[in-house]
Protein backbone atom coordinates (compact mmCIF):
# COMPACT_ATOMS: atom_id res chain seq x y z
CA UNK A 1 0.00 0.00 0.00
CA UNK A 2 1.40 3.33 -0.89
CA UNK A 3 1.24 6.10 1.65
CA UNK A 4 -0.07 9.53 0.71
CA UNK A 5 1.37 12.49 2.59
CA UNK A 6 -1.23 14.95 1.25
CA UNK A 7 -4.08 12.69 2.38
CA UNK A 8 -2.59 12.18 5.84
CA UNK A 9 -1.81 15.88 6.16
CA UNK A 10 -5.41 16.69 5.31
CA UNK A 11 -6.51 14.84 8.43
CA UNK A 12 -4.17 16.93 10.55
CA UNK A 13 -5.28 20.15 8.87
CA UNK A 14 -8.92 19.66 9.82
CA UNK A 15 -8.31 21.33 13.19
CA UNK A 16 -6.93 24.70 12.20
CA UNK A 17 -6.26 26.22 15.65
CA UNK A 18 -4.36 23.06 16.52
CA UNK A 19 -2.26 23.35 13.38
CA UNK A 20 -1.38 26.93 14.34
CA UNK A 21 -0.46 25.78 17.84
CA UNK A 22 1.71 22.95 16.47
CA UNK A 23 3.37 25.30 14.01
CA UNK A 24 4.27 27.74 16.79
CA UNK A 25 5.50 25.03 19.17
CA UNK A 26 7.98 23.77 16.57
CA UNK A 27 9.04 27.25 15.56
CA UNK A 28 9.80 27.93 19.22
CA UNK A 29 12.39 25.12 19.04
CA UNK A 30 13.83 26.63 15.87
CA UNK A 31 14.21 30.04 17.59
CA UNK A 32 15.98 28.41 20.55
CA UNK A 33 18.31 26.71 18.10
CA UNK A 34 19.11 30.06 16.47
CA UNK A 35 19.85 31.65 19.84
CA UNK A 36 22.17 28.81 20.82
CA UNK A 37 24.11 28.68 17.57
CA UNK A 38 24.50 32.41 17.04
CA UNK A 39 26.65 32.58 20.17
CA UNK A 40 29.27 30.29 18.62
CA UNK A 41 31.48 32.26 16.22
CA UNK A 42 33.00 29.07 14.81
CA UNK A 43 29.59 27.46 14.18
CA UNK A 44 30.13 27.11 10.43
CA UNK A 45 33.57 25.57 11.02
CA UNK A 46 31.96 23.08 13.36
CA UNK A 47 29.36 22.12 10.75
CA UNK A 48 32.09 21.64 8.17
CA UNK A 49 34.19 19.60 10.59
CA UNK A 50 31.18 17.41 11.44
CA UNK A 51 30.39 16.94 7.77
CA UNK A 52 33.98 15.99 6.96
CA UNK A 53 34.12 13.49 9.80
CA UNK A 54 30.91 11.88 8.54
CA UNK A 55 32.19 11.77 4.96
CA UNK A 56 35.33 10.12 6.22
CA UNK A 57 33.20 7.65 8.17
CA UNK A 58 31.15 6.63 5.13
CA UNK A 59 34.28 6.05 3.03
CA UNK A 60 35.79 3.83 5.76
CA UNK A 61 32.65 2.45 7.34
CA UNK A 62 33.67 -1.21 7.11
CA UNK A 63 37.06 -0.73 8.76
CA UNK A 64 35.68 1.55 11.48
CA UNK A 65 32.94 -0.96 12.30
CA UNK A 66 35.49 -3.76 12.53
CA UNK A 67 37.77 -1.61 14.66
CA UNK A 68 34.87 -0.71 16.91
CA UNK A 69 33.83 -4.34 17.22
CA UNK A 70 37.26 -5.58 18.20
CA UNK A 71 37.78 -2.78 20.73
CA UNK A 72 34.32 -3.22 22.20
CA UNK A 73 34.91 -6.97 22.56
CA UNK A 74 38.24 -6.29 24.25
CA UNK A 75 36.30 -4.04 26.65
CA UNK A 76 34.03 -6.94 27.54
CA UNK A 77 31.03 -5.85 25.47
CA UNK A 78 29.11 -8.42 23.43
CA UNK A 79 28.67 -7.31 19.82
CA UNK A 80 25.82 -8.51 17.59
CA UNK A 81 25.02 -7.71 13.95
CA UNK A 82 21.53 -7.46 12.49
CA UNK A 83 20.85 -7.14 8.80
CA UNK A 84 17.19 -6.27 9.26
CA UNK A 85 14.87 -4.82 11.87
CA UNK A 86 13.37 -8.25 12.43
CA UNK A 87 16.80 -9.73 13.12
CA UNK A 88 17.53 -6.91 15.58
CA UNK A 89 14.33 -7.71 17.46
CA UNK A 90 15.13 -11.41 17.58
CA UNK A 91 18.61 -10.72 18.93
CA UNK A 92 17.27 -8.44 21.68
CA UNK A 93 14.66 -11.01 22.63
CA UNK A 94 17.19 -13.85 22.70
CA UNK A 95 19.46 -11.87 25.05
CA UNK A 96 16.53 -11.19 27.37
CA UNK A 97 15.36 -14.79 27.21
CA UNK A 98 18.77 -16.20 28.01
CA UNK A 99 18.95 -14.04 31.13
CA UNK A 100 15.35 -14.77 31.99
CA UNK A 101 14.67 -11.03 31.92
CA UNK A 102 10.98 -10.23 31.65
CA UNK A 103 10.81 -6.53 32.43
CA UNK A 104 12.64 -4.10 30.17
CA UNK A 105 13.07 -0.35 30.68
CA UNK A 106 13.94 1.58 27.54
CA UNK A 107 15.34 5.02 26.96
CA UNK A 108 14.71 6.83 23.71
CA UNK A 109 15.82 4.98 20.59
CA UNK A 110 14.40 5.87 17.19
CA UNK A 111 16.08 2.76 15.81
CA UNK A 112 13.89 0.49 17.94
CA UNK A 113 10.86 2.42 16.66
CA UNK A 114 12.09 1.79 13.13
CA UNK A 115 12.47 -1.93 13.89
CA UNK A 116 9.11 -2.20 15.67
CA UNK A 117 10.79 -3.65 18.76
CA UNK A 118 8.09 -2.88 21.34
CA UNK A 119 5.20 -4.75 19.71
CA UNK A 120 7.51 -7.69 18.96
CA UNK A 121 8.72 -7.97 22.55
CA UNK A 122 5.23 -7.52 23.97
CA UNK A 123 3.97 -10.32 21.75
CA UNK A 124 6.69 -12.46 23.27
CA UNK A 125 5.66 -11.71 26.82
CA UNK A 126 8.18 -8.99 27.68
CA UNK A 127 6.94 -6.07 29.75
CA UNK A 128 8.34 -2.96 28.02
CA UNK A 129 8.38 0.50 29.62
CA UNK A 130 9.52 3.54 27.66
CA UNK A 131 11.07 5.80 30.28
CA UNK A 132 11.61 9.09 28.45
CA UNK A 133 8.66 11.25 29.52
CA UNK A 134 7.57 12.07 25.97
CA UNK A 135 7.89 8.44 24.95
CA UNK A 136 6.02 7.27 28.03
CA UNK A 137 3.19 9.66 27.16
CA UNK A 138 2.81 8.28 23.64
CA UNK A 139 3.25 4.70 24.87
CA UNK A 140 0.41 5.15 27.39
CA UNK A 141 -1.68 6.72 24.62
CA UNK A 142 -0.84 3.76 22.38
CA UNK A 143 0.61 6.07 19.72
CA UNK A 144 3.99 6.27 18.01
CA UNK A 145 6.23 9.32 18.59
CA UNK A 146 5.47 12.21 16.22
CA UNK A 147 8.92 13.84 16.50
CA UNK A 148 12.33 12.29 17.10
CA UNK A 149 13.40 14.66 19.90
CA UNK A 150 10.00 15.68 21.29
CA UNK A 151 7.90 12.52 20.87
CA UNK A 152 4.70 14.01 22.31
CA UNK A 153 4.94 17.47 20.74
CA UNK A 154 1.53 16.92 19.10
CA UNK A 155 -0.21 16.48 22.47
CA UNK A 156 -1.71 19.31 24.49
CA UNK A 157 -1.13 19.40 28.22
CA UNK A 158 -4.83 18.91 28.93
CA UNK A 159 -4.75 15.67 26.95
CA UNK A 160 -1.76 14.47 28.95
CA UNK A 161 -3.63 15.43 32.12
CA UNK A 162 -6.53 13.20 31.06
CA UNK A 163 -4.21 10.40 29.97
CA UNK A 164 -2.26 10.34 33.25
CA UNK A 165 -5.48 10.56 35.25
CA UNK A 166 -6.85 7.55 33.46
CA UNK A 167 -3.68 5.43 33.31
CA UNK A 168 -1.71 6.49 36.38
CA UNK A 169 -4.46 7.79 38.64
CA UNK A 170 -3.12 11.33 38.93
CA UNK A 171 -5.27 14.26 40.01
CA UNK A 172 -6.75 16.50 37.37
CA UNK A 173 -4.87 19.77 37.52
CA UNK A 174 -5.44 21.18 34.07
CA UNK A 175 -2.17 19.80 32.75
CA UNK A 176 0.35 21.47 35.10
CA UNK A 177 3.66 20.32 33.55
CA UNK A 178 5.51 20.39 36.93
CA UNK A 179 2.94 18.19 38.60
CA UNK A 180 2.71 15.75 35.69
CA UNK A 181 6.50 15.46 35.47
CA UNK A 182 6.79 14.75 39.21
CA UNK A 183 4.07 12.11 38.96
CA UNK A 184 5.84 10.54 35.98
CA UNK A 185 9.05 10.50 38.01
CA UNK A 186 7.35 8.57 40.82
CA UNK A 187 5.66 6.19 38.42
CA UNK A 188 8.83 5.47 36.47
CA UNK A 189 10.85 4.88 39.65
CA UNK A 190 8.63 1.89 40.34
CA UNK A 191 9.44 0.60 36.87
CA UNK A 192 13.18 1.10 37.29
CA UNK A 193 13.13 -0.70 40.64
CA UNK A 194 11.59 -3.86 39.24
CA UNK A 195 13.39 -3.85 35.87
CA UNK A 196 15.47 -6.86 34.80
CA UNK A 197 17.19 -5.19 31.85
CA UNK A 198 17.66 -1.80 30.21
CA UNK A 199 17.86 -0.84 26.55
CA UNK A 200 19.29 2.42 25.22
CA UNK A 201 20.00 3.89 21.84
CA UNK A 202 23.45 5.07 20.81
CA UNK A 203 24.26 8.62 19.73
CA UNK A 204 27.90 8.02 18.89
CA UNK A 205 30.06 4.89 18.85
CA UNK A 206 33.80 5.53 18.91
CA UNK A 207 35.90 3.19 16.75
CA UNK A 208 39.22 3.84 18.49
CA UNK A 209 37.92 3.13 22.01
CA UNK A 210 35.09 0.65 21.47
CA UNK A 211 32.92 2.82 23.69
CA UNK A 212 29.69 4.67 22.97
CA UNK A 213 27.88 7.81 24.07
CA UNK A 214 24.22 8.31 24.96
CA UNK A 215 22.84 11.87 25.31
CA UNK A 216 19.76 12.54 27.45
CA UNK A 217 18.19 15.28 29.54
CA UNK A 218 15.96 13.46 31.99
CA UNK A 219 18.44 10.95 33.34
CA UNK A 220 16.26 8.01 32.41
CA UNK A 221 18.89 6.23 30.32
CA UNK A 222 21.49 6.11 33.09
CA UNK A 223 18.83 5.41 35.66
CA UNK A 224 17.62 2.35 33.76
CA UNK A 225 21.06 1.05 32.89
CA UNK A 226 22.39 1.44 36.42
CA UNK A 227 19.36 0.01 38.17
CA UNK A 228 19.93 -3.25 36.32
CA UNK A 229 23.00 -5.27 35.36
CA UNK A 230 21.96 -6.08 31.79
CA UNK A 231 22.40 -3.26 29.28
CA UNK A 232 21.50 -3.65 25.60
CA UNK A 233 22.36 -0.77 23.24
CA UNK A 234 20.97 -0.62 19.69
CA UNK A 235 22.81 1.35 17.04
CA UNK A 236 22.59 1.92 13.30
CA UNK A 237 25.82 1.25 11.39
CA UNK A 238 26.18 4.98 10.63
CA UNK A 239 26.57 5.97 14.29
CA UNK A 240 30.31 5.23 14.17
CA UNK A 241 32.85 8.02 14.53
CA UNK A 242 36.60 7.38 14.28
CA UNK A 243 38.10 9.15 17.28
CA UNK A 244 37.15 10.13 20.80
CA UNK A 245 38.17 13.71 20.02
CA UNK A 246 35.46 13.81 17.31
CA UNK A 247 32.96 13.79 20.17
CA UNK A 248 34.13 17.34 20.87
CA UNK A 249 32.62 18.39 17.56
CA UNK A 250 29.39 16.40 17.78
CA UNK A 251 28.52 17.16 21.39
CA UNK A 252 28.91 20.85 20.57
CA UNK A 253 26.41 20.74 17.71
CA UNK A 254 23.85 18.10 18.73
CA UNK A 255 21.92 19.73 21.58
CA UNK A 256 22.30 23.25 20.22
CA UNK A 257 20.61 22.11 17.02
CA UNK A 258 18.02 19.95 18.76
CA UNK A 259 16.69 22.02 21.65
CA UNK A 260 18.94 25.07 21.84
CA UNK A 261 20.74 23.73 24.93
CA UNK A 262 24.54 24.09 24.94
CA UNK A 263 24.75 20.33 25.68
CA UNK A 264 22.33 17.74 27.02
CA UNK A 265 22.18 17.37 30.81
CA UNK A 266 23.80 13.94 30.63
CA UNK A 267 26.35 12.83 28.04
CA UNK A 268 27.11 9.32 29.19
CA UNK A 269 30.20 7.49 27.99
CA UNK A 270 29.96 3.70 28.21
CA UNK A 271 33.09 1.66 27.71
CA UNK A 272 32.88 -1.41 29.92
CA UNK A 273 30.02 -3.10 31.73
CA UNK A 274 29.69 -2.60 35.46
CA UNK A 275 31.45 -5.20 37.53
CA UNK A 276 29.30 -8.31 37.45
CA UNK A 277 27.10 -6.85 34.73
CA UNK A 278 26.63 -7.51 31.03
CA UNK A 279 26.64 -5.14 28.09
CA UNK A 280 25.46 -5.90 24.55
CA UNK A 281 25.56 -3.82 21.39
CA UNK A 282 23.37 -4.64 18.42
CA UNK A 283 24.69 -3.09 15.20
CA UNK A 284 21.82 -2.71 12.74
CA UNK A 285 21.90 -2.25 8.97
CA UNK A 286 18.23 -2.33 7.89
CA UNK A 287 18.74 -0.71 4.51
CA UNK A 288 21.57 1.65 5.46
CA UNK A 289 24.30 -0.17 3.51
CA UNK A 290 22.06 -0.03 0.44
CA UNK A 291 21.61 3.72 0.91
CA UNK A 292 25.41 3.95 1.07
CA UNK A 293 25.49 2.72 -2.52
CA UNK A 294 23.31 5.57 -3.82
CA UNK A 295 25.81 8.31 -4.52
CA UNK A 296 23.16 11.04 -4.60
CA UNK A 297 21.61 9.99 -1.30
CA UNK A 298 24.37 8.53 0.86
CA UNK A 299 24.81 11.94 2.52
CA UNK A 300 21.55 11.25 4.37
CA UNK A 301 23.57 8.81 6.49
CA UNK A 302 25.38 11.77 8.07
CA UNK A 303 22.25 12.42 10.13
CA UNK A 304 22.73 12.66 13.91
CA UNK A 305 18.97 12.82 14.61
CA UNK A 306 18.81 16.33 16.08
CA UNK A 307 15.42 17.14 14.54
CA UNK A 308 16.39 20.69 13.48
CA UNK A 309 15.14 20.06 9.93
CA UNK A 310 11.71 19.17 11.27
CA UNK A 311 11.44 22.20 13.52
CA UNK A 312 12.21 24.55 10.66
CA UNK A 313 10.20 22.80 7.92
CA UNK A 314 7.06 24.73 6.90
CA UNK A 315 5.48 21.48 5.75
CA UNK A 316 6.32 19.42 8.85
CA UNK A 317 5.16 22.18 11.17
CA UNK A 318 1.79 22.31 9.42
CA UNK A 319 1.25 18.64 8.69
CA UNK A 320 2.51 16.93 11.86
CA UNK A 321 4.83 13.96 12.34
CA UNK A 322 2.15 11.35 11.68
CA UNK A 323 1.52 12.56 8.15
CA UNK A 324 4.85 11.00 7.12
CA UNK A 325 4.08 7.48 8.39
CA UNK A 326 7.73 6.92 9.31
CA UNK A 327 9.71 6.58 12.53
CA UNK A 328 11.86 9.51 11.39
CA UNK A 329 9.48 12.08 9.85
CA UNK A 330 10.14 15.48 8.31
CA UNK A 331 12.64 16.40 5.62
CA UNK A 332 15.30 13.89 6.69
CA UNK A 333 12.73 11.08 6.86
CA UNK A 334 11.59 12.04 3.37
CA UNK A 335 15.05 11.36 1.93
CA UNK A 336 15.74 8.25 4.04
CA UNK A 337 12.49 6.39 3.50
CA UNK A 338 12.16 6.31 -0.31
CA UNK A 339 15.41 4.32 -0.33
CA UNK A 340 13.78 1.64 1.81
CA UNK A 341 10.48 1.40 -0.06
CA UNK A 342 10.08 3.69 -3.04
CA UNK A 343 6.51 2.61 -3.80
CA UNK A 344 5.23 3.12 -0.31
CA UNK A 345 6.97 6.44 0.34
CA UNK A 346 6.84 7.99 -3.12
CA UNK A 347 4.81 10.99 -1.90
CA UNK A 348 7.31 12.05 0.78
CA UNK A 349 9.84 13.83 -1.48
CA UNK A 350 6.94 16.04 -2.56
CA UNK A 351 6.12 17.03 1.04
CA UNK A 352 8.39 20.03 0.76
CA UNK A 353 8.43 23.53 -0.64
CA UNK A 354 12.13 23.04 -1.52
CA UNK A 355 12.83 26.23 0.39
CA UNK A 356 16.11 24.76 1.63
CA UNK A 357 15.73 25.81 5.26
CA UNK A 358 16.38 22.20 6.32
CA UNK A 359 19.79 22.21 4.67
CA UNK A 360 20.61 25.57 6.23
CA UNK A 361 20.04 24.38 9.79
CA UNK A 362 21.44 20.85 9.36
CA UNK A 363 24.50 20.65 11.66
CA UNK A 364 26.17 17.99 9.51
CA UNK A 365 25.45 19.80 6.24
CA UNK A 366 23.20 17.31 4.50
CA UNK A 367 21.89 18.81 1.24
CA UNK A 368 18.38 17.72 2.16
CA UNK A 369 16.49 19.92 -0.29
CA UNK A 370 18.63 18.80 -3.21
CA UNK A 371 18.11 15.17 -2.30
CA UNK A 372 14.37 15.75 -2.10
CA UNK A 373 14.50 17.17 -5.63
CA UNK A 374 16.52 14.20 -6.87
CA UNK A 375 14.08 11.72 -5.32
CA UNK A 376 11.26 13.51 -7.12
CA UNK A 377 12.92 12.81 -10.43
CA UNK A 378 13.33 9.15 -9.58
CA UNK A 379 9.77 8.85 -8.33
CA UNK A 380 8.42 10.45 -11.51
CA UNK A 381 10.40 8.06 -13.69
CA UNK A 382 9.83 4.88 -11.75
CA UNK A 383 6.36 5.31 -10.32
CA UNK A 384 3.46 5.93 -12.66
CA UNK A 385 2.28 9.47 -11.97
CA UNK A 386 -1.50 10.06 -11.89
CA UNK A 387 -3.00 10.17 -15.41
CA UNK A 388 -4.17 13.77 -15.07
CA UNK A 389 -0.68 14.92 -14.08
CA UNK A 390 0.81 13.11 -17.05
CA UNK A 391 -1.72 14.70 -19.40
CA UNK A 392 -1.14 18.15 -18.01
CA UNK A 393 2.63 17.81 -18.33
CA UNK A 394 2.34 16.49 -21.87
CA UNK A 395 0.01 19.18 -23.08
CA UNK A 396 2.02 21.79 -21.20
CA UNK A 397 5.13 20.56 -22.98
CA UNK A 398 3.44 20.82 -26.39
CA UNK A 399 2.28 24.36 -25.70
CA UNK A 400 5.63 25.56 -24.46
CA UNK A 401 7.39 24.11 -27.51
CA UNK A 402 5.26 26.03 -30.00
CA UNK A 403 4.68 29.83 -29.62
CA UNK A 404 1.59 29.80 -31.86
CA UNK A 405 -0.07 27.01 -29.91
CA UNK A 406 0.94 28.69 -26.66
CA UNK A 407 -0.78 31.97 -27.58
CA UNK A 408 -3.93 30.24 -28.67
CA UNK A 409 -4.17 27.98 -25.64
CA UNK A 410 -3.60 30.82 -23.21
CA UNK A 411 -6.46 32.78 -24.81
CA UNK A 412 -8.81 29.83 -24.56
CA UNK A 413 -7.73 29.07 -21.03
CA UNK A 414 -8.51 32.65 -19.97
CA UNK A 415 -11.97 32.46 -21.53
CA UNK A 416 -12.93 29.03 -20.26
CA UNK A 417 -11.56 29.29 -16.75
CA UNK A 418 -13.48 32.51 -16.21
CA UNK A 419 -16.70 30.87 -17.27
CA UNK A 420 -16.40 27.79 -15.09
CA UNK A 421 -17.70 27.97 -11.53
CA UNK A 422 -14.98 27.44 -8.93
CA UNK A 423 -16.33 24.10 -7.68
CA UNK A 424 -15.87 22.67 -11.17
CA UNK A 425 -12.40 24.16 -11.53
CA UNK A 426 -11.40 22.68 -8.18
CA UNK A 427 -12.08 19.18 -9.46
CA UNK A 428 -9.11 19.56 -11.78
CA UNK A 429 -7.10 22.30 -10.15
CA UNK A 430 -5.85 21.16 -6.77
CA UNK A 431 -4.01 24.46 -6.33
CA UNK A 432 -7.31 26.29 -6.04
CA UNK A 433 -8.62 24.03 -3.27
CA UNK A 434 -6.82 25.95 -0.59
CA UNK A 435 -6.55 29.30 -2.34
CA UNK A 436 -8.61 32.09 -3.82
CA UNK A 437 -8.82 32.22 -7.61
CA UNK A 438 -7.25 35.47 -8.82
CA UNK A 439 -9.15 37.91 -11.00
CA UNK A 440 -8.70 36.91 -14.64
CA UNK A 441 -7.80 39.74 -17.07
CA UNK A 442 -9.60 39.90 -20.41
CA UNK A 443 -6.48 39.88 -22.52
CA UNK A 444 -3.04 38.37 -22.35
CA UNK A 445 0.01 40.49 -21.63
CA UNK A 446 1.15 39.96 -25.20
CA UNK A 447 -2.09 41.46 -26.57
CA UNK A 448 -1.92 44.34 -24.14
CA UNK A 449 1.69 45.05 -25.09
CA UNK A 450 0.91 45.07 -28.80
CA UNK A 451 -1.76 47.71 -28.22
CA UNK A 452 0.16 49.88 -25.81
CA UNK A 453 3.78 49.90 -26.89
Amino acid at each position, binding site marked *: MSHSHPKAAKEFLRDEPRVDWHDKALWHARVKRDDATSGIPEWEDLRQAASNIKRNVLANL*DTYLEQFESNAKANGINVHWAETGAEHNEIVFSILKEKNARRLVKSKSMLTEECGLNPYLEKNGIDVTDTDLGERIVQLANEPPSHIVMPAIHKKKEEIDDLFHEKLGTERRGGDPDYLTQEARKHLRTRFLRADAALTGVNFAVAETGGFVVCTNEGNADMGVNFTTLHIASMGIEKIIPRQSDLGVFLRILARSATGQPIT*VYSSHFKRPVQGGEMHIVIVDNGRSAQLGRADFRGSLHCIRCGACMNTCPVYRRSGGYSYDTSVPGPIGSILKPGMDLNRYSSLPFASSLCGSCSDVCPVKIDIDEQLYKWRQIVTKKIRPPVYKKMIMKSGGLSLADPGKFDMRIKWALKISGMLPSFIRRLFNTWERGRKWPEIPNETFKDWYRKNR
Partner: protein
Amino acid sequence: MSREKILDTIRKNKPSVTVDPPSLPLRVKAYQPEKTIAEFEKNLRAVGGIILYMEDFKMENVADNPKLVFSLNEGISKGNLDIENARTEDLEKLDVAILNATVGVAENGALWVPEENMGRRLIPFITKDLILTIRKDLIVDTMHDAYDKLADSDTSYGVFISGPSKTADIEQALVIGAQGHLRLYVIIEQAKTQP
Protein backbone atom coordinates in the same frame (compact mmCIF):
# COMPACT_ATOMS: atom_id res chain seq x y z
CA MET B 1 26.17 -14.48 8.74
CA SER B 2 24.73 -11.00 8.92
CA ARG B 3 28.07 -9.52 9.96
CA GLU B 4 29.77 -10.57 6.72
CA LYS B 5 26.78 -9.66 4.62
CA ILE B 6 26.63 -6.15 6.05
CA LEU B 7 30.37 -5.57 5.78
CA ASP B 8 30.45 -6.93 2.21
CA THR B 9 27.64 -4.63 1.12
CA ILE B 10 29.41 -1.69 2.73
CA ARG B 11 32.67 -2.56 0.94
CA LYS B 12 30.82 -2.76 -2.35
CA ASN B 13 28.80 0.43 -1.83
CA LYS B 14 31.06 2.83 0.01
CA PRO B 15 32.37 5.89 -1.81
CA SER B 16 35.86 5.48 -3.25
CA VAL B 17 36.96 9.02 -2.49
CA THR B 18 37.58 9.85 1.11
CA VAL B 19 38.23 13.07 2.98
CA ASP B 20 40.56 13.25 5.93
CA PRO B 21 38.85 13.93 9.21
CA PRO B 22 39.65 17.46 10.38
CA SER B 23 42.54 18.00 12.72
CA LEU B 24 41.17 18.64 16.17
CA PRO B 25 40.72 20.49 18.41
CA LEU B 26 39.34 23.51 16.61
CA ARG B 27 41.00 26.30 18.54
CA VAL B 28 39.21 29.60 18.78
CA LYS B 29 40.91 31.64 21.42
CA ALA B 30 43.81 31.61 23.81
CA TYR B 31 43.15 30.36 27.32
CA GLN B 32 42.56 33.14 29.85
CA PRO B 33 41.77 31.56 33.23
CA GLU B 34 39.67 34.38 34.67
CA LYS B 35 37.52 34.70 31.55
CA THR B 36 37.12 30.94 31.34
CA ILE B 37 35.90 30.67 34.92
CA ALA B 38 33.51 33.60 34.50
CA GLU B 39 32.13 31.96 31.35
CA PHE B 40 31.78 28.64 33.18
CA GLU B 41 29.83 30.27 36.01
CA LYS B 42 27.55 32.10 33.58
CA ASN B 43 26.75 29.01 31.54
CA LEU B 44 26.37 26.80 34.59
CA ARG B 45 23.73 29.19 35.94
CA ALA B 46 22.04 29.26 32.54
CA VAL B 47 21.55 25.47 32.62
CA GLY B 48 20.10 25.62 36.14
CA GLY B 49 23.18 24.88 38.26
CA ILE B 50 23.78 26.68 41.55
CA ILE B 51 27.28 27.88 42.42
CA LEU B 52 28.56 27.65 45.99
CA TYR B 53 31.86 28.71 47.46
CA MET B 54 33.91 26.47 49.71
CA GLU B 55 34.54 29.28 52.20
CA ASP B 56 30.90 29.78 53.15
CA PHE B 57 29.52 26.33 52.41
CA LYS B 58 26.85 25.08 54.81
CA MET B 59 24.97 21.84 54.29
CA GLU B 60 21.72 23.40 55.49
CA ASN B 61 21.85 25.76 52.53
CA VAL B 62 21.70 22.76 50.24
CA ALA B 63 19.28 20.38 51.87
CA ASP B 64 17.00 20.76 54.81
CA ASN B 65 18.17 18.22 57.37
CA PRO B 66 19.33 15.55 54.91
CA LYS B 67 19.00 12.06 56.35
CA LEU B 68 21.13 10.13 53.92
CA VAL B 69 24.31 11.65 52.52
CA PHE B 70 27.03 10.08 50.42
CA SER B 71 30.30 11.94 50.16
CA LEU B 72 33.58 11.36 48.40
CA ASN B 73 34.85 14.72 49.62
CA GLU B 74 35.70 14.57 53.30
CA GLY B 75 36.45 18.29 53.38
CA ILE B 76 32.77 18.96 52.82
CA SER B 77 31.07 16.11 54.60
CA LYS B 78 31.82 12.63 55.84
CA GLY B 79 28.41 11.35 54.76
CA ASN B 80 26.54 8.49 56.40
CA LEU B 81 25.72 6.09 53.58
CA ASP B 82 27.23 2.64 53.97
CA ILE B 83 28.12 2.28 50.30
CA GLU B 84 29.49 -1.26 50.68
CA ASN B 85 26.21 -2.68 51.89
CA ALA B 86 23.70 -0.31 50.32
CA ARG B 87 21.05 -1.94 48.16
CA THR B 88 19.43 -0.17 45.24
CA GLU B 89 16.35 0.42 47.37
CA ASP B 90 18.53 2.21 49.92
CA LEU B 91 20.09 4.44 47.28
CA GLU B 92 16.55 5.48 46.37
CA LYS B 93 16.46 7.37 49.66
CA LEU B 94 19.70 9.25 49.04
CA ASP B 95 19.25 12.96 49.78
CA VAL B 96 22.66 14.37 48.91
CA ALA B 97 25.67 13.05 47.00
CA ILE B 98 28.96 14.94 47.04
CA LEU B 99 31.29 13.94 44.22
CA ASN B 100 34.41 15.39 42.65
CA ALA B 101 34.37 16.32 38.97
CA THR B 102 37.68 16.16 37.13
CA VAL B 103 36.96 18.46 34.16
CA GLY B 104 34.70 21.50 33.88
CA VAL B 105 33.66 23.00 30.55
CA ALA B 106 33.06 26.74 30.30
CA GLU B 107 31.01 26.78 27.10
CA ASN B 108 28.20 24.64 28.50
CA GLY B 109 28.67 24.30 32.26
CA ALA B 110 29.27 20.57 31.92
CA LEU B 111 31.29 18.64 34.50
CA TRP B 112 32.99 15.30 33.89
CA VAL B 113 32.45 12.65 36.54
CA PRO B 114 34.26 9.36 35.93
CA GLU B 115 33.06 6.10 37.48
CA GLU B 116 35.92 6.13 40.00
CA ASN B 117 34.41 9.31 41.46
CA MET B 118 30.82 8.06 41.69
CA GLY B 119 30.92 5.48 44.46
CA ARG B 120 28.36 3.54 42.46
CA ARG B 121 27.27 4.15 38.89
CA LEU B 122 23.77 4.97 40.05
CA ILE B 123 24.70 7.65 42.61
CA PRO B 124 24.89 10.84 40.51
CA PHE B 125 21.49 10.10 38.99
CA ILE B 126 19.47 8.75 41.87
CA THR B 127 20.41 11.35 44.47
CA LYS B 128 17.97 14.21 44.98
CA ASP B 129 20.67 16.85 45.40
CA LEU B 130 23.99 16.51 43.66
CA ILE B 131 26.99 18.52 44.80
CA LEU B 132 29.97 18.48 42.47
CA THR B 133 33.30 20.03 43.27
CA ILE B 134 35.64 21.28 40.58
CA ARG B 135 39.11 22.72 40.91
CA LYS B 136 39.55 26.04 39.14
CA ASP B 137 42.51 24.84 37.13
CA LEU B 138 40.47 21.93 35.74
CA ILE B 139 37.98 24.21 33.99
CA VAL B 140 38.56 24.48 30.23
CA ASP B 141 36.95 26.52 27.46
CA THR B 142 35.32 24.06 25.07
CA MET B 143 34.46 20.41 24.61
CA HIS B 144 37.55 20.08 22.41
CA ASP B 145 39.71 21.06 25.37
CA ALA B 146 37.77 18.68 27.59
CA TYR B 147 38.50 15.72 25.32
CA ASP B 148 42.13 16.80 25.21
CA LYS B 149 42.17 16.35 28.99
CA LEU B 150 40.39 13.01 28.70
CA ALA B 151 42.67 11.68 25.95
CA ASP B 152 44.49 9.32 28.31
CA SER B 153 41.53 8.46 30.49
CA ASP B 154 40.51 4.82 30.39
CA THR B 155 37.46 5.02 32.61
CA SER B 156 34.81 2.35 32.06
CA TYR B 157 31.97 4.80 32.47
CA GLY B 158 31.88 8.55 32.76
CA VAL B 159 29.33 11.31 32.38
CA PHE B 160 29.33 14.97 31.48
CA ILE B 161 26.67 16.54 33.68
CA SER B 162 25.30 19.96 32.74
CA GLY B 163 22.78 21.24 35.26
CA PRO B 164 19.97 19.33 36.98
CA SER B 165 17.88 16.77 35.08
CA LYS B 166 15.17 18.45 33.07
CA THR B 167 12.46 17.87 30.49
CA ALA B 168 10.30 19.91 28.17
CA ASP B 169 8.21 17.03 26.88
CA ILE B 170 4.90 18.55 27.94
CA GLU B 171 4.13 21.43 25.58
CA GLN B 172 7.79 22.44 25.70
CA ALA B 173 7.37 23.83 29.21
CA LEU B 174 10.76 23.52 30.90
CA VAL B 175 10.56 21.47 34.09
CA ILE B 176 13.70 21.33 36.23
CA GLY B 177 14.04 18.05 38.07
CA ALA B 178 12.92 15.23 35.81
CA GLN B 179 14.07 11.70 36.62
CA GLY B 180 17.66 12.21 37.66
CA HIS B 181 19.05 14.60 40.28
CA LEU B 182 16.65 17.42 41.08
CA ARG B 183 19.23 20.11 41.85
CA LEU B 184 22.89 20.61 41.01
CA TYR B 185 25.25 22.55 43.25
CA VAL B 186 28.80 23.19 42.13
CA ILE B 187 31.61 24.13 44.47
CA ILE B 188 34.53 25.78 42.71
CA GLU B 189 37.72 25.05 44.61
CA GLN B 190 40.98 26.92 44.47
CA ALA B 191 43.63 25.50 42.22
CA LYS B 192 46.24 23.38 43.91
CA THR B 193 49.15 25.54 44.97
CA GLN B 194 52.38 24.63 43.30
CA PRO B 195 54.76 22.81 45.65
